Each structure stands twice: as structure tokens, then as C-alpha cells.
């Protein structure tokens, strides 16, 4: 589901002094300008490859880690249908992770390296999965409002320039449409329910408001780097443009149910942009770096899986491992 628009690490990027072959660079840029896709074995600038690996890998990690807060609620989902839907959704998310790891691998970073970098904390993932899903209403908010945010980002990226990423995203967007619908359904069920259910939903919306504003990343700073990524169709929309598009679509869908966001300054301006209170971007940076409420638990679970399930892989790869008789 979710690769936020924000690519951690890009603001610390030192300008790459490497000089690309100007003839090849021009051919590459002309191809993108004509709307053609880039395929794995094509020539591509170093910066393009590096940025795409980082972006697709972080997107993949977000899918895999994103399955955890929702997976928590499978056993406690209210009713058989919601349980079935949640199982299907979580399974899809893990499948999306697989598709994205494949796309990233075509650029030359192995799946094993990516997983190792996730476990060591070197690679990041979306901020929103480092918050707990405290009640069932949190699951409804994730399924509706977080998935919707992810879709805004993914639909934009699916029109990018790198063939394998576009192919993966097309499939992902097709599958996400059901996720959003079931999330909206669960959200509406609570919003139109009893007083207690409405209060529970409002609480969850209050908890998730800030992470949602953070999701698309800090306000854009015009830079040569960003301009280049947009020209290469790696980044398709600015953080603010995505956030504005998202708020325009989904704030009304929440407010029509008599639920609101805990921010008196959240409003649409005459020019279509949105204003909101300072969401504390330092918190966002802390959470991305590993200091959110659930970072430790999320990675601990992944490490546990990697260690405790290793024997399965060993058995699969060595089905006929020889037994040696004792010598004496």
C-alpha cells in the first residue's frame, strides 16, 4: 500500500560530482521526455539508479512493515466478514512488498541486501507504521485514510519513467481499490453507529491526524536535486501537491460524517492549497530515524521472523543434506 511521497535521506544528499556521459545522458532524457519507459538494462545515470533503488526499496519495506499493525487486529476484527477482509488485505500488502522488492532488484541491489538494511535500521520506511493501532477504530482509519494517502502517491508514481516500478504499481493500485473501499466501509460503520462507536472513531482520527499530515513529507524546498528528479520522472508530484490533492478529496468525506480533524487551522485556501497548524516536523524526523512509539517492536518482529524461520529455508535448499555416520 504505502510509499509516502517522502524519500528519507534525500535532503542529506551531497551533490554528486560524477560527470555522466553527456551524449548518453541526452539520449536518456530525450527518451523520458518522449514518454518512453526505461527498462532494467538500459543505460541510466547513477543518480537515477540510486534514487530509484532507495525509493522502491523503502516502498517495499513499508508494505512489509505495514502489514504488522493491521495484522495485530486479525484475531479481534469484529465479525467474520471483516476478519476475512483484513486477512485478504494483509496478504495483499505482503504480496505488494514482494512485487516491489523485485522491481528494486532489477536495479542491482539484491533482495538479501535490502532485507539486511531494513533489519539494521539503515533503510527506512513510512512514518505511519511506527504508531500503534490501539483500537478497532484505528484499523478503520488506517484502511480508509492511510490507504487513500498511499493511493494518491502510488497513482502518481505509476506514471513514472521506470518500467518495472510502473508495472508493479499498476497491479498494486488495482488491488488497493478494494482496500480503500473496505476501509471506508468500516469507517462509515463506526461513524454511523452508536455514540460510543463515534467517540472511538473520533479518538482514532485525533491520534492519526498528525501522522497523516506527515505522510507526504515536509513542505517542498525548491532544489536542483528535486527539479532533476521531476525531469527524470522519478518523483511525479511535489509533497505539497500530493498533500493538497489528498486533503481536497478526503477531508470532505470525513466531515460529511460529522467527524473532524483536531486542528482548527485545517482549511482550504482560495487557490486550492490547504493550511494547517504546525505539525511538528521534528517528530516526523525522529519517527523516520527510528524513535517512534513502535519502531523497536516492528523491527524486533522482523528480526524474530528472520531468525526463527531460517530453518525452513535451510530445509528447502538442502532437502537431501547428508547424514554422516559416527566414526567410532
Amino acid at each position: 500500500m504505502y510509499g509516502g511521497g517522502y524519500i528519507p535521506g534525500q535532503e542529506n544528499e551531497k551533490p554528486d560530482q560524477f560527470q555522466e556521459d553527456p551524449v548518453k545522458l541526452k539520449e536518456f532524457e530525450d527518451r523520458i521526455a518522449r514518454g518512453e519507459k526505461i527498462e532494467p538494462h538500459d543505460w541510466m545515470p547513477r543518480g537515477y539508479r540510486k534514487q530509484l533503488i532507495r525509493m522502491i526499496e523503502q516502498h517495499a519495506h513499508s508494505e512489509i512493515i505495514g502489514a504488522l499493525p493491521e495484522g495485530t487486529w486479525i484475531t479481534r476484527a469484529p465479525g467474520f466478514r471483516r476478519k476475512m477482509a483484513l486477512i485478504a488485505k494483509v496478504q495483499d500488502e505482503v504480496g505488494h512488498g514482494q512485487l516491489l522488492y523485485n522491481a528494486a532488484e532489477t536495479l542491482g541491489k539484491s533482495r538479501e541486501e535490502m532485507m539486511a538494511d531494513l533489519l539494521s535500521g539503515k533503510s527506512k520506511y513510512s512514518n505511519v507504521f511506527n504508531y500503534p493501532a490501539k483500537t478497532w477504530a484505528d484499523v478503520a482509519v488506517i484502511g480508509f485514510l492511510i490507504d487513500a494517502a498511499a493511493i494518491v502517491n502510488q497513482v502518481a508514481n505509476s506514471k513514472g519513467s521506470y518500467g518495472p516500478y510502473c508495472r508493479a504499481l499498476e497491479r498494486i493500485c488495482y488491488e488497493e481499490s478494494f482496500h480503500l473501499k473496505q476501509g471506508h466501509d468500516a469507517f462509515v460503520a463506526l461513524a454511523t453507529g452508536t455514540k460510543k462507536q463515534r467517540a472511538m472513531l473520533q479518538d482514532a482520527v485525533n491520534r492519526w491526524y498528525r501522522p497523516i499530515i506527515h505522510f507526504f513529507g515536509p513542505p517542498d524546498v525548491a532544489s536542483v536535486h528535486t527539479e532533476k528528479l521531476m525531469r527524470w520522472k522519478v518523483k511525479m508530484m511535489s509533497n505539497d501537491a500530493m498533500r493538497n490533492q489528498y486533503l481536497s478529496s478526503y477531508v470532505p468525506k470525513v466531515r460529511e460524517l460529522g467527524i473532524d480533524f483536531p486542528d482548527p487551522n485545517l482549511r482550504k485556501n482560495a487557490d486550492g492549497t490547504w493550511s494547517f497548524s504546525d505539525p511538528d516536523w521534528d517528530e516526523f524526523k525522529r519517527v523516520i530515524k527510528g524513535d517512534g512509539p513502535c519502531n523497536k517492536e516492528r523491527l524486533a518482529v522482523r528480526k524474530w521472523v528472520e531468525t526463527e524461520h531460517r530453518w525452513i529455508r535451510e530445509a528447502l535448499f538442502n532437502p537431501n543434506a547428508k547424514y554422516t555416520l559416527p566414526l567410532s
Partner: protein
Amino acid sequence: MEKSLDPRIARLNIQRNEEGASPIGKHEYGESFEVFVQSRRGKQHVHAGTVHASDPGMALIFAKEQFGRRQHCVNMWVVATSEIFAFQYADSDMFETVPEKLHREPGGYKVRDKIEAYRKKISQQKADKS
């Protein structure tokens, strides 16, 4: 680490693993296989994506989970990526030939005018005889 909200995770007593997983070896996840999916009988198998697996049998199992989960599907093939032979994109100019290919298109063959002319001629001849 705080106590998890997830009872299953809380039961794992995961602290002992917090030090870190054992390192992941090179190619530990296995080689990749290309997956081809047939949506109905009578249709072609179409390339759907890639899976990593220990052997073709496991690749089929993963392919079923990954590509047969949502869409209708009656059959699948897998083949190791290393067994695929392909042209290079850099050579794609070899597919460019003469721009005009009417000689291999149905529209390149127009016979109706000739038939009409022939029939006109024959009927004229018949009329002349009688």
C-alpha cells in the same frame, strides 16, 4: 521495548532476539523464476512477474500465492530467469525495417476494381454476340 498491543507478539518474549538477526547470506533467498499465467483455457500464458524460490516446485507454490490470488487463473508456468534468452534493448533498431509494409498487410491487396472491369468486359462481349 514496551509491551506489545498484539497478544501474539507479547507472547513471543521477543526481547532476547533484539540484539539482531543472524546475517543474511548472499543469494540466500534463492534464484528468481519468471511466472507466466493463463487466465482461461484457450488464452495464451502471459508473463506476470517474478518469484524467488529454492526450486521450480516451490516457485510454482509461490507463484500461485502471488499471481493466482486475486485474478482468475487456470494454469501457470515458471522458468528460471537464468534460462531466458533475450535481445538487448540497445539493439532494438534491428526491428526497424522498411517503413512501408503494405505487401504484408491485407489492405495491400485490392482486387475489386479488376474484378469489376473483367465482369464489365465479359458482359459487353456477351451483349455484342447476341
